[in-house]
């Protein structure tokens, strides 16, 4: 199985490399290290060059042609012009200490010390407060998928409170409802793909939960082999990329019952 995965992945990359080579040939580009960063493409609701994917601890996010920042604990909005330069629009004072921002449909989810705050972004891109879910004072990134939001709460490092993760029903975004609260050791960043929730736990490792039943998540994989602070998933390739304290760790989770570490890169 392992060999098979490796071969298919290798084949895939060979195809991708050929595609890149074709593009390079067409453009007459030179083969420098970073040439394959696309400068065009896009489409859909996000015209212009494609934005990338943030980890859950992000304090900048791009949604459509707007860039939002909570870097200095204010919610700042910038319009991204066609030439990719920014027009500063506005800033909103937040009555709480915001640590993370996550774009979700036409909303922004802000992870704050005191809870999750939901803002709607209208056609003019400016965020408007919709609702909030308050919890004990903790450090907490938040992500969302479908009708649910997932957040971790961590007590360490000056964040009081408790170590746990919460699942919120946000099918009515005006009124988020707590579905479940589960204790977990020192949770940091998190990510979700379909029925699987990945939680980084600092030096306590990484856990994967099957969340098909939101009221009873089942721990299906736990690794203490590597410390992890944040994660980005590539759902198309089923690759999980973890940022540790000094490492980049990657898993192939295409077979969720037998997750494979495919690289452990000392940075």
């Amino acid at each position, binding site marked *: 199985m392992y060999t098979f995965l490796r071969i298919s992945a290798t084949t895939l990359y060979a195809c991708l490399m050929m595609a890149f080579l074709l593009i390079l040939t067409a453009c007459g580009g030179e083969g420098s290290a970073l040439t394959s960063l696309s400068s065009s493409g896009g489409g859909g609701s996000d015209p212009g060059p494609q934005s990338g994917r943030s980890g859950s*601890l992000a304090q*900048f996010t*791009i949604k459509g042609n707007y860039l939002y920042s909570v870097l200095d604990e204010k919610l700042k909005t910038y319009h991204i012009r066609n030439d990719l330069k920014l027009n500063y629009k506005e800033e909103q004072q937040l009555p709480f200490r915001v640590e993370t921002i996550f774009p979700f449909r036409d909303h922004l989810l802000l992870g704050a010390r005191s809870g999750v705050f939901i803002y709607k972004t209208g056609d003019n891109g400016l965020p408007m407060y919709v609702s909030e879910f308050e919890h004990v004072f903790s450090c907490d990134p938040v992500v969302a998928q479908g009708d649910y939001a997932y957040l971790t709460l961590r007590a360490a490092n000056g964040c009081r409170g408790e170590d746990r993760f919460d699942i919120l029903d946000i099918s009515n975004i005006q009124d988020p409802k707590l579905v479940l609260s589960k204790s977990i050791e020192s949770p940091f960043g998190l990510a979700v793909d379909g029925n699987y929730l990945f939680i980084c736990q600092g030096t306590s490792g990484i856990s994967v939960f099957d969340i098909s039943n939101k009221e009873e998540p089942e721990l299906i994989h736990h690794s203490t082999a590597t410390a992890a602070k944040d994660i980005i998933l590539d759902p198309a390739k089923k690759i999980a990329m973890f940022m540790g304290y000094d490492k980049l760790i990657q898993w192939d989770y295409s077979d969720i019952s037998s997750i494979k570490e495919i690289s452990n890169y000392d940075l």
Partner: protein
Amino acid sequence: MKRIYFFFILISLTFSSCFGWGGSSSGGYSWNEGDAVKSPVQVKDEGISMQSPQGFKSLGKIYYQPPFLFINETGRGLHIIDNSDPYSPEKVKFIKIPGNLDLAMKGNYLYVNHMRDMVLLRIDKDEVVELQRLKNAFNDKHGNDEYPKNYRGYFICPDPEEGKVIYWEDIIADEEPNCRI
């Protein structure tokens, strides 16, 4: 001057515990080998530049712009990792950005904070080109502090020669730090 200031705080704390104002939480800590303490990340603003790959010290944020991963080195810049083959990722460049805490991208355009400024950069082949700078877009999040905010305990004393404190990280100290608050 700063040392005197810390000394003053230390003296005040000592006296406050003597007089029983602070209770057990204020004066009762002691340093043990292996304890995590706050350590200042200090940067001199030497400008933005593309450099060869660098070692990691304190990883902050991660960003995926396939096939590249951008990993923020808190307050120092961005590591660029070619992840075309996830079995064998490879550091290709380091963009030095003093004070950098976060990033977002569109194609090969990069939005970052450089100290307190919001800056738009374009990655052109192996160079980085500055296209726009919004001065003082951000408040000092972590301040140019002489001591860590919202913290009590030991910390590594900032060295005024090493530039501005842009961040306080947690480290395991090998010996008792000289400052505490």
